[in-house]
C-alpha cells in the first residue's frame, strides 16, 4: 500500500484539529493551579486624570480578599519596556516616557490599570474591586493625532513637548522636491487609516505561579512569543533571571499581533504569585480587552505623486501623523516607520520617495502592530493614491499599474526607501487575478446592477509587503533592541520518531501540521511520527515567536538547518556502520545508502545506533541524534500580489456588499495549500472588516465609544463573501525553503481593493475618495448629499 503523500505541497488535514474539535484545546484560562487566587483589575474610566487618592481599606477587608495592590506597591519594579528605539530627524532619540505596570500618579487612557484585587474567587475579587475608593481629578485630554498635534494641546506626558514621540523621516527630500518641480502633473490625497481593535476570540489571560522550594516562577500566558515575554518581563520589569522564570504559552486563541506585547497583567500575576506564595490567575473580560489590548493602525496622511505626461510615477511625497496612544507598547515605534515608510515604493519603480512620520501620544489605548502592521497602511495609501491619479487624469487603473510595475528582470531591486526586493512578478499575479475576477466582464455586471437600482463597483490593489522578520543586523541598525533570528531543535528519538521544538508559536496558523510536513518531507519520517512542540521556554532552547509572517520563512529555515545537521551526523554514523566514507553516503526518503551499492540503513537504524552506541565511531563522534540551529535571515521576504474586489451598494440603505473577492498572492514556497488558503481568507476577512465595518471610536476627550461587541462591528458570516484564493509564487532567493510568508497578505492587499471598488461604485456621483470604514451611514450620506445634483444632471 502506498501511503498518501503528506510532504511539501500536500493539503494534509491538520494534526491539531482533533483536540480543538473535541473540546480538548488547552488555553490559558483552562489552566488552574492548586491553591490558585484570582485577580481583578480596577481600570480608569477616565481618559486623563490625576490620581488624588486610593483607599483600599474596604476592599482589603471584603470576603475572600488576599491582597490589594496599587502603583505604590509596585514602585520598586520597572516599567513595561519598549523594544524599539526610533531617532528623530535631528538624530536625538524618541521620547520614551515610563509605562508603569499600575498607574503612578496619573491615568492616561480609559482602561489604564489602577489597582488589582486578589481574592479566593473571581467574583470575590470583582466584588471587592467595587469597594476601592479611588478619587480622580480630570485633566484636559486628547484622542486624535490631529488634536494632539494642535498648538497648545494638553500634554499626555508632562515631559513630552507637543506630545511628539518622534519626528522621523526617510528618503531623498531634495530628489523628490526636484521631481515635483518638473512634474507634468501632481496628484494629492488626504486619507486616514482607521483605528482597529484586534479582538482575537480568546481574551488575554495570565496565571502566575511560584515554587517556594526552588524560587522558580512560571507564567502561563496568552502570548505569541513566550521567550520574548520572559526576556522583557524578567530582565526589565521584575528583575528575574531567565533560569528562574519559565513562560508557557499553551494553546492561544488567535493573536493577530495583539498577543506579541508584554502586558501589565503578566507582570502583576507573576509578581503577586511571588509575594503571596500562591498562584494568581487573571482573565480579561471582553470589555477589558477593548480597553487594554493594543489597538492597530490610526494614521492620518497626505500623499502626493508627481507624474510625467505619460503617467509614469516620478516621485512620492508622504506626510503621516500616527497615534502611539498613552504609552509606548512593545514594538509600537517600529510600526509606522520601518514597517510602513520603507514599504512606500510598493510594487512600483517610483525613483524618488520622501516620507515624514510624526508619532503622537494621545489619551488612548497604546497602538501597536495589528495583522500587517504598517504594511496595510502603506498599501492602502499607495493603492488609493494610484486610483485617485486615474480619477484625476483619466488613466486606466490597470494600465497605469502595469506601466509603473518593477519589471520582472529588475530583481534584486533596490527601492529608494532602504529595502531590496529579492524576487517578484507582479504582472503574473495581476493577470491571474483579473482573469479570475472577470475584470473584462464587469461593465455588463455594472449595467445589470444599475437596472436593479444598485451601484456596482470593482476595485483592484497590486500590493507588496515585507515580512520574514528579520535580519538581526539590519533591524539592530534601525533601532531594534533584540535579534530576530529563529531557533529549532530537531530531536530524533532512539526508535526513529521525531520531536521538533520551535521558537515560533502557533495560535491558529497550523504549525503542528505545516512544520511536521516539512520534517516528514526532509527526513522521510511518516507525519504521524513527528510532533511539533512550541510555547514553553522550559522545553525550547530559544525563540523570538510568531508575528510578521515569519514562522515558516525564518522558523522553518531554522528547522531545515537543524535537519541538515541531523543528516550530516547520520551520514557519519551510516558510513561507520557500512564501512564506507561519509562522502559516499547519500540520504533520501529516510534512508542512508552507499552510493553505487545496495547497502542501506534507515534513519531509525541510525538513530538507534546513535543512542545505543555499541558499534560507533565514539572517538570522533558524540552519541545522540539531536541538533539545534539558530537561523538569522539574510533579508526580509517580499510577498505581494493582486486583490480584486467587486461591491454592490444599496442606495436606500447605504449598505455595501462584497459580491466577489479574488486574491492572487505570491507567498513563495507553499507547504500546505489548504492552510495557506485559510490564512489568506482570514486576512481578507479582517481587511474587509477594516474597509467596511470596523472602527475604534473615541469621543474628542478620549472616552472609548466602541467598547464592546455591541458597538464595534466585527465581521459576521453574513457580512462576508466567499473568498477566491490563488497563488502565483516566485521563490524567495535567500532562505533555504524559498518561503515568503502568507499570514498577513490578506489583510494588506484587501482594504485598498475594497475601497477602490467602493469609490468606483460611487464615481458617477463625483466621489473621489472615501475613508474607511465605508459604513452604511457614511455611504448613505454620500449618496443622498449628491442626489440633488444627480437629479439635475
Amino acid at each position, binding site marked *: 500500500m502506498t501511503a498518501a503523500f503528506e510532504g511539501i505541497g500536500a493539503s494534509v488535514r491538520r494534526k491539531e484539529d482533533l483536540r480543538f474539535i473535541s473540546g480538548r484545546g488547552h488555553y490559558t484560562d483552562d489552566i488552574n493551579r492548586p491553591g490558585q487566587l484570582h485577580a481583578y483589575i480596577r481600570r480608569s474610566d477616565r481618559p486623563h486624570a490625576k490620581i488624588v487618592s486610593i483607599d483600599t481599606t474596604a476592599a482589603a477587608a471584603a470576603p475572600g480578599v488576599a491582597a490589594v495592590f496599587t502603583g505604590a506597591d509596585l514602585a520598586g519594579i520597572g516599567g513595561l519596556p519598549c523594544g524599539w528605539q526610533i531617532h528623530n530627524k535631528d538624530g536625538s532619540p524618541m521620547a520614551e516616557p515610563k509605562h508603569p505596570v499600575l498607574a503612578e500618579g496619573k491615568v492616561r487612557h480609559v482602561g489604564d490599570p489602577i489597582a488589582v484585587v486578589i481574592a479566593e474567587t473571581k467574583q470575590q475579587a470583582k466584588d471587592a474591586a467595587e469597594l476601592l475608593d479611588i478619587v480622580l481629578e480630570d485633566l484636559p485630554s486628547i484622542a486624535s493625532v490631529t488634536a494632539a498635534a494642535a498648538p497648545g494641546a494638553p500634554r499626555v506626558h508632562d515631559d513630552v513637548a507637543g506630545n511628539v514621540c518622534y519626528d522621523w523621516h526617510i528618503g531623498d527630500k531634495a530628489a523628490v522636491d526636484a521631481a515635483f518641480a518638473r512634474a507634468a502633473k501632481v496628484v494629492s490625497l488626504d486619507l486616514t487609516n482607521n483605528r482597529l481593535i484586534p479582538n482575537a*476570540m480568546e481574551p488575554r489571560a495570565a496565571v502566575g505561579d511560584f515554587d517556594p522550594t526552588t524560587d522558580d516562577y512560571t507564567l502561563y500566558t496568552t502570548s505569541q512569543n513566550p521567550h520574548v515575554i520572559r526576556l522583557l518581563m524578567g530582565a526589565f520589569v521584575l528583575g528575574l533571571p531567565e533560569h528562574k522564570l519559565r513562560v508557557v504559552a499553551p494553546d492561544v486563541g488567535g493573536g493577530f499581533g495583539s498577543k506579541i506585547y508584554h502586558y501589565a497583567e503578566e507582570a502583576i500575576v507573576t509578581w503577586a504569585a511571588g509575594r503571596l506564595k500562591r498562584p494568581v490567575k487573571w482573565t480579561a473580560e471582553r470589555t477589558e480587552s477593548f480597553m487594554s489590548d493594543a489597538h492597530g493602525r490610526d494614521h492620518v496622511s497626505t500623499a502626493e505623486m508627481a507624474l510625467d505626461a505619460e503617467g509614469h510615477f516620478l516621485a512620492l511625497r508622504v506626510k503621516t501623523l500616527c497615534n502611539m496612544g498613552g504609552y509606548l507598547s512593545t514594538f509600537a515605534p517600529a510600526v509606522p516607520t520601518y514597517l510602513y515608510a520603507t514599504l512606500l515604493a510598493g510594487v512600483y519603480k517610483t525613483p524618488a520617495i520622501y516620507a515624514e512620520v510624526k508619532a503622537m501620544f494621545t489619551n488612548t489605548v497604546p497602538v501597536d502592530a495589528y495583522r500587517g502592521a504598517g504594511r496595510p497602511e502603506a498599501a492602502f495609501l499607495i493603492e488609493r493614491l494610484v486610483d485617485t491619479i486615474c480619477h484625476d487624469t483619466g488613466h486606466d487603473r490597470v494600465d497605469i499599474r502595469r506601466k509603473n510595475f518593477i519589471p520582472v528582470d529588475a530583481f534584486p531591486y533596490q527601492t529608494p526607501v532602504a529595502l531590496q526586493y529579492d524576487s517578484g512578478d507582479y504582472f503574473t499575479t495581476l493577470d491571474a487575478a483579473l482573469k479570475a475576477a472577470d475584470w473584462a466582464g464587469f461593465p455588463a455586471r455594472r449595467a445589470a446592477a444599475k437596472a436593479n437600482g444598485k451601484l456596482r463597483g470593482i476595485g483592484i490593489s497590486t500590493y507588496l509587503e515585507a515580512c520574514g522578520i528579520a535580519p538581526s543586523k539590519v533591524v539592530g541598525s534601525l533601532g531594534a533592541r533584540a535579534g530576530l533570528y529563529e531557533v529549532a531543535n530537531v530531536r530524533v528519538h532512539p526508535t526513529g520518531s521525531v520531536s521538533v521544538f520551535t521558537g515560533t508559536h502557533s495560535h491558529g496558523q497550523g504549525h503542528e501540521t505545516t512544520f511536521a510536513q516539512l520534517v516528514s518531507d526532509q527526513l522521510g519520517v511518516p507525519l504521524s511520527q513527528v510532533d511539533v512542540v512550541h510555547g514553553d521556554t522550559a522545553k525550547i532552547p530559544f525563540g523570538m515567536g510568531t508575528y510578521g509572517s515569519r514562522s515558516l520563512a525564518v522558523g522553518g529555515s531554522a528547522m531545515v538547518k537543524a535537519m541538515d545537521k541531523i543528516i550530516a551526523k547520520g551520514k557519519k554514523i551510516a558510513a561507520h556502520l557500512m564501512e564506507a566514507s561519509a562522502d559516499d553516503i547519500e540520504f533520501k526518503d529516510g534512508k542512508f545508502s552507499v552510493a553505487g551499492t545496495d547497502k542501506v540503513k534507515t534513519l531509525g537504524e541510525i538513530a538507534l545506533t546513535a543512542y545505543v552506541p555499541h558499534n560507533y565511531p565514539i572517538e570522533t563522534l558524540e552519541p545522540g541524534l539531536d541538533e539545534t540551529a539558530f537561523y538569522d535571515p539574510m533579508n526580509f521576504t517580499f510577498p505581494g500580489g493582486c486583490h480584486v474586489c467587486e461591491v454592490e451598494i444599496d442606495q436606500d440603505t447605504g449598505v455595501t456588499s462584497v459580491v466577489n473577492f479574488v486574491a492572487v498572492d505570491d507567498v513563495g514556497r507553499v507547504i500546505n495549500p489548504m492552510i495557506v488558503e485559510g490564512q489568506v481568507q*482570514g486576512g481578507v476577512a479582517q481587511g474587509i472588516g477594516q474597509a467596511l465595518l470596523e472602527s475604534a471610536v473615541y469621543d474628542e476627550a478620549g472616552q472609548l465609544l466602541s467598547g464592546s461587541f455591541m458597538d464595534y462591528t466585527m465581521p459576521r458570516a453574513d457580512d462576508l463573501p466567499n473568498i477566491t484564493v490563488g497563488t502565483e509564487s516566485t521563490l524567495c532567493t535567500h532562505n533555504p525553503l524559498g518561503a515568503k510568508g502568507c499570514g498577513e497578505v490578506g489583510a494588506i492587499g484587501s482594504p485598498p481593493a475594497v475601497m477602490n471598488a467602493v469609490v468606483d461604485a460611487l464615481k458617477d456621483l463625483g466621489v473621489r475618495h472615501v475613508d474607511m470604514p465605508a459604513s452604511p451611514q457614511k455611504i448613505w450620506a454620500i449618496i443622498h448629499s449628491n442626489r440633488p445634483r444627480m437629479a439635475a444632471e
Partner: protein
Amino acid sequence: MPQVTLTVNGKSASVEVEARTLLVELLREKLGLTGTHVGCDTSQCGACVVHVDGTSVKACTMLAVQADGASVTTIEGLAKADGTLHPMQEMFREHHALQCGFCTPGMVMSAIDLVQSHPEGLTEAQIRHGLEGNLCRCTGYHNIVKAIAAAWPIMHGKVPAAAE
C-alpha cells in the same frame, strides 16, 4: 447556596452554586468542562454555545439555576463513546473550518442545531444568517460555511458518512 442538579453529556451532576453563577461558569469551573469557552461579556460571540435539552443556548446568557433538571450537551459530549466524531466535527476538520480553535466548540454546537432544525435543506445564505450569533476572527467563515453545508446531507442521512 442553591443546589443545581442536571445531566451533562449523559452524566448526572449535582452542584452547589451562587445564585448568580452562569451556566458556562458551572460547566467550566465546577465540572471542569473547559471545552466551552467564554469570548465576550455581552452574549455576542457564541464561543459558549451548548445544547440545553437539544437546543443551542449561549451558556453565558443562562443562569446555572435555570438549567436545573435540564440535559446539557457540550462539545466534549458530541463524540460517541468509542471516539467516533460527530459528522459536524468531522466536516470542520475536513474543510479546515478552524484555525485557533477558540470559537470552534460554540460554532460546532450552533451549526449542529442549525442543521437539525432545517431538515428541508440549507442554502449558503441561510447558513451565513444562521451563524450571526457566532464570531470567528480567523477563518473569514468561508470554510465554516463549507463544513456546515457538507455536514447537512450526512446528518440528514442523505449520504453515508465518509468510510473509514
